[in-house]
């Protein structure tokens, strides 16, 4: 096992967080109840969305967002090719087909609204806007496009809780699409282990998500515990996508520090950018305005090409610095793969950024010393 000098991410769990979970466990009530309700309320306030419905994961949030949007067999959903695989699997769970579209470019690797528009067919029902690595996609442009073409806009905010909009800095991601999907996976800005949330301004959509996350039962264990009638109906094909109370308690404790955590991540990104700026062979991604709006899940940089990127990562690994990168969806075997020796021609920018980028360590608790270690390792790797 590699002992990293600087791991990719680090999760700080405070003593307050621990005590919140222990108090919940001591209460003996572990299934969706008062803590889940309180966490949902805190989330709705944080994101500034009318409805927040917690679920078991970001993937579950995407699945239920698609179902609530009415996506079904025969439909097409436009998804950027540079994202985590769950952005595309959600459409498939519903029997629909994800249609991959390109990103703007290596320096703004979010969904390209023009390319999305070009891929709309009569079967298209929705567009998934992914705010990748915490950087907000141009959802205002996508909103306009979806309104013009009668499509649903679903925001994949799995990596971007607390990010502010491109073009409207008063608004946060997850409030422009009909539905937003968030993740509380253990590497995320707000993490509980496994968890997620759907945001929506629509009461009707919120109720639909609430119903489907717990087997479309007309009453919950908590309702019955409080003395409601024991009889219930099952009114649709639902799922077990519930969060439980210990995770809600942890999330509720941590959300109090979320804004400060995001600010700390941003400060680290700024320190990185200042010190890495101008290094030969390395390019920064996005501009200062995007850095201001991002909630900074990850800090990706660009190398010259795939070979340079792979060598760079090897050298950082040798220096004890953990890095990662996201393959483009169309390079996975399940999504067609890339022809041997060839290149996918219709999603060139997604492929380019996938091959050239590398994410450096980033967490809310990174010290200046750790930044020093990474910067020194980066300089050495580039000089090698």
């Amino acid at each position, binding site marked *: 096992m590699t002992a*990293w000098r600087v791991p990719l991410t*680090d999760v700080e769990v405070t003593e307050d967080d621990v005590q919140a979970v222990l108090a919940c466990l001591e209460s003996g009530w572990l*299934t969706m109840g008062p803590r889940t309700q309180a966490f949902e309320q805190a989330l709705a306030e944080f994101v500034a969305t009318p409805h927040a419905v917690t679920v078991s*994961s970001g993937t579950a949030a995407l699945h239920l967002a698609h179902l609530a949007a009415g996506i079904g067999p025969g439909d097409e959903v436009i998804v950027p090719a540079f994202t985590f*695989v769950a952005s595309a699997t959600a459409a498939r769970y519903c029997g629909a087909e994800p249609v991959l579209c390109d990103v703007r470019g290596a320096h703004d690797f979010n969904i390209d609204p023009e390319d999305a528009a070009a891929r709309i067919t009569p079967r298209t029902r929705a567009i998934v806007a992914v705010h990748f690595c915490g950087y907000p996609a141009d959802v205002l442009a996508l909103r306009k496009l979806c309104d013009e073409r009668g499509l649903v806009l679903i925001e994949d905010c799995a990596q971007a809780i607390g990010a502010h909009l491109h073009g409207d800095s008063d608004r946060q991601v997850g409030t422009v699409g009909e539905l937003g999907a968030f993740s509380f996976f253990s590497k995320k800005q707000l993490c509980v282990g496994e968890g997620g949330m759907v945001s929506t301004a629509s009461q009707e959509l919120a109720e639909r998500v609430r119903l489907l996350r717990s087997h479309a039962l007309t009453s919950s264990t908590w309702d*019955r515990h409080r*003395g409601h009638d024991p009889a219930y109906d*099952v009114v649709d094909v639902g799922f077990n996508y519930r969060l439980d109370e210990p995770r809600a308690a942890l999330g509720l404790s941590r959300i109090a520090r979320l804004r400060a955590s995001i600010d700390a991540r941003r400060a680290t990104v700024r320190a990185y950018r200042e010190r890495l700026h101008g290094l030969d062979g390395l390019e920064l991604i996005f501009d200062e305005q995007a850095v201001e709006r991002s909630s900074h899940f990850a800090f990706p940089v660009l190398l010259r090409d795939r070979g340079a990127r792979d060598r760079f990562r090897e050298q950082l690994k040798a220096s004890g610095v953990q890095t990662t990168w996201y393959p483009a969806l169309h390079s996975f075997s399940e999504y067609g793969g890339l022809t041997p020796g060839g290149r996918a021609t219709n999603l060139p920018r997604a492929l380019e950024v996938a091959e050239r980028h590398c994410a450096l360590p980033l967490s809310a608790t990174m010290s200046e010393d750790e930044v020093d270690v990474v910067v020194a390792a980066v300089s050495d790797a580039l000089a090698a």
Partner: protein
Amino acid sequence: MSTAESFPELPLFDLQLQPQDLEAVAETLRSGWLTLGPRTAAFEEAFAAQLGARHALAVSSCTAALHLAYLAAGVGPGDEVVVPSFTFTATAAAALYCGGTPVFAEIVSRERPSLDPEDVERRITPRTKAVCVVHYAGYAAAADRLKELCDARGIALIEDVAHAPSARLAGRKLGTWGLAGAFSFFSNKVLSVGEGGLLCTDDDDVAAFVRSRRSHAMTSGTWDRHSGRTDTYDVVGLGFNYRLDEPRAALLLSRLQRLEAEIERRRELTRRYRELLQQVDGIIVPFDDDEVPDSSCYVIPIMIEEDGRQAEVSSRLRERGIQTSIFYPSIHLFSAYRKRFPDVSLPITELASRTELTLPFYPHMTCEDQDRVVTALAEAVK
């Protein structure tokens, strides 16, 4: 407080965790590693060893375990899965997730509300890919006969063991009779954690499939990359996020140490409950006394002999601070299933659903509490 909005004095279930359980969770949280990692692996190993199964794979819920079990059995569009209707909706819903069709079969009787192998046999068609047997309330259904029946036809037997961890049939643990067993760690279960589940199997290919599909069919996990084992990954199928996380695995591992002792306590309480209940006129106490030593004794179900009195008896008990539940309404009569399968008729199941009540039960229940429940029930049924 009105009876319509109040906590029952005697709830259906109640959970008391021990200081060592809390310490295990606290220690995990303080470690800062929350996703699938060493604690999940340790829990899986301990659970597999206790069960006598080759593989145990922790997942996010029993529903997830059933979904993956059916997929592993090859259930796809057009395929049929024979399931009881006298069970929680997930047993059937998981077949729909795969694009398959649940085919509902009868239970034996109200005295033995377990899947009837003879009725299962009648419902097998060329499109049947799997049979799912539920070990209701923790008592073994006829997994032995169903296994013979399935093996003879090349059909997979899946066990829904949500109620029955560490229960046995003919000396063999439930969950190990078929291709895969699906366990639940939901908050009211014998081994509870909040939300959680597990799939066990002796089949290496099934284990590899489930390991892959529970985490998006990625060829490596976050822990693998953190531990330097691999660097990148491929996606090789349509997978899901059905992962458990480390705090829950730590809680399960801690609680697993006491599982046998807790079940033993449940058996003692069940014996006493049964003795008292057998003296109450007008009710049926399902299963036989001599099955208690092999059961996990998850819940105490009774059937009111006379039809049409379930709501009234339940409401009278509620007035006395006693919570009851219905385990289970017939799945085929739920509106979602009625719409899809309008012609299903299962008279024994339907009668059981209309007359069943599940009584309060938990390991720290006192004799006085039991007496109170039984006295109130006798008066309500009279």
